[in-house]
C-alpha cells in the first residue's frame, strides 16, 4: 500500500532488504546464510520509535489517561522524544522534554521543529542533575502524563502487532531476529510474536557498551533493568563496544549503501556473529536485523570519517544508540 490518510497511518510497513555483499560466503554445496535489514528509518520521523510512540499515545487515549490538550512529559532526548513530538503535534497534545543541555543540536532542532518544548538540565550536573530537574518538574505538574517507555506494555505491543507480523510476512524462512536492547520493547514484542509462530527461532539482543562516563553510577544498586524486560524471550545477548559499532555502521553504507545510525552498526555486529556461526555449523540461516534510524542525526559527531580510533574518541561519553 502506498497511499495513506495521514502521516500517522504511514507508520510501519518498512522494507526488508537483503545484504548480498555483507552476508557471509558459504562453502560450495552448503546451505545459504543470508542477512536481511529491516529499514526502520523509513518511518514518519525516521526511526523505529514511531511505532511505540504511536501505540503508547493511542493506548493512553483509549484508557482515558490522556485527554485532549493534555501535556506529555518525556525525559529523553533520543528518537522516542522526536517520535512523540510528531504524534503529539498531530493528535493535539503538548510535549515537554527534559534533557541535559549537551545533547546534539540536531536533536534540539528536530524536537523544536515538531513543536516540543525543552527544559534543559545543566550539562555539568550529568544525569544526577537531570533527575533532580525531572523530580522538580514532576512535583510542580502532577497532571502531566508520562508514558514511561521502559515499563509501558504498549511499547512492546507495537512490535508484537506490527514489526513481528511484517517480518514473518516478508521472510517466512526467518531463523534469527537481531535487534538493539534499550527499553527492550522491540525485542520483547517482536521476539514473543516470532517465538509463537516460528519453531526454533533465535532472538538475539545487541546492547551498546558505552564509555564509562555515560554510566555515571555511584554504585551497583543504582542500576536499572526495564520493567518490560523478560530474559526468557531472548536466546542470546551481546555487548557491542563503540569501535565495533562504528566499524559496522561504516561497512553498512560502504558495502550495501545503507546510511544508518551507530546503534544499527552494533546490531549488525551481533547479526554477523550469529551468521558466521551458522556458516561454521553448516546450517541454513535467514538473519533479520533492525536498522533503527538513519545516520543524519549523528553526522555532527564526525564519526563517519577518519580513523576508527578518532571515531571512538568522538563518541566517548555520548549515548550513540
Amino acid at each position: 500500500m502506498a497511499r495513506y490518510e495521514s502521516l500517522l497511518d504511514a507508520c510501519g510497513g518498512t522494507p526488508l532488504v537483503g545484504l548480498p555483499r555483507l552476508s557471509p560466503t558459504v562453502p560450495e554445496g552448503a546451505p545459504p546464510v543470508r542477512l536481511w535489514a529491516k529499514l526502520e528509518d523509513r518511518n514518519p520521523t525516521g526511526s523505529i520509535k514511531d511505532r511505540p510512540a504511536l501505540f503508547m499515545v493511542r493506548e493512553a487515549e483509549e484508557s482515558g489517561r490522556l485527554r485532549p490538550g493534555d501535556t506529555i512529559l518525556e525525559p529523553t532526548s533520543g528518537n522516542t522524544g522526536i517520535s512523540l513530538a510528531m504524534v503529539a503535534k498531530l493528535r493535539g497534545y503538548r510535549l515537554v522534554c527534559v534533557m541535559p543541555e549537551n545533547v546534539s543540536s540536531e536533536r534540539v532542532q528536530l524536537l523544536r521543529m515538531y513543536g516540543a518544548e525543552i527544559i534543559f538540565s545543566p550539562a555539568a550536573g550529568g544525569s544526577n542533575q537531570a533527575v533532580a530537574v525531572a523530580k522538580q518538574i514532576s512535583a510542580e505538574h502532577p497532571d502531566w502524563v508520562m508514558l514511561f517507555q521502559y515499563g509501558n506494555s504498549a511499547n512492546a505491543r507495537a512490535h508484537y502487532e506490527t514489526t513481528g507480523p511484517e517480518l514473518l510476512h516478508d521472510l517466512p524462512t526467518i531463523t534469527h531476529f537481531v535487534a538493539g536492547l534499550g527499553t527492550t520493547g522491540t525485542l520483547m514484542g517482536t521476539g514473543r510474536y516470532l517465538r509463537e509462530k516460528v519453531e526454533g527461532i533465535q532472538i538475539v539482543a545487541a546492547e551498546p557498551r558505552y564509555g564509562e562516563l555515560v554510566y555515571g553510577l555511584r554504585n551497583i544498586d543504582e542500576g536499572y533493568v526495564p520493567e518490560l524486560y523478560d530474559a526468557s524471550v531472548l536466546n542470546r545477548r551481546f555487548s557491542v563496544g563503540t569501535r565495533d559499532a562504528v566499524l559496522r555502521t561504516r561497512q553498512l553504507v560502504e558495502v550495501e549503501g545503507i546510511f544508518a545510525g551507530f546503534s544499527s552498526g552494533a546490531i549488525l555486529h551481533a547479526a554477523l556473529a550469529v551468521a558466521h556461526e551458522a556458516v561454521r555449523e553448516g546450517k541454513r540461516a535467514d538473519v533479520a536485523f533492525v536498522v533503527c534510524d538513519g545516520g543524519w542525526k549523528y553526522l555532527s559527531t564526525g564519526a563517519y570519517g577518519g580513523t576508527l580510533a578518532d571515531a571512538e574518541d568522538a563518541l566517548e561519553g555520548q549515548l550513540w544508540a
Partner: protein
Amino acid sequence: MAIEVRVPTILRSYTGGSKVVEGSGDTLSGLIDDLDAKHSGLKGRLITPEGGLHRFVNIYVNDEDVRFLGALDAKLNDGDSVTILPAVAGGALGFAAAAALLGR
C-alpha cells in the same frame, strides 16, 4: 595464560583502581572465587547472598551475556575476555530521570 577481566569504575575500589585484572577458573563461578581471593569483597558485589548473579550486574564472556551461557556455570577458557558492567538501560538520562519521575 589467564583470563582478562574488565572492571567498571564503580567496582575499582576493590581492585586498587585497576581497570583490568587477571584471574583463572574453569567456570565463571571459579573465576569469581579466584578474583575474590586477590581482591577481597569483590564477590559480594557480584553475587547475592542467595548465590545468584546480582540483578544489576551484567557479566560478559567475549562480549556475550553469561546469563545465556549458563550464568555462574558458564565455561571459561584461557584467553577469554570477561567484562563486568552495571545494568543500565538506554543510557544514563532516560532511565534515571524516568525512575525519579515515578518516585522510585
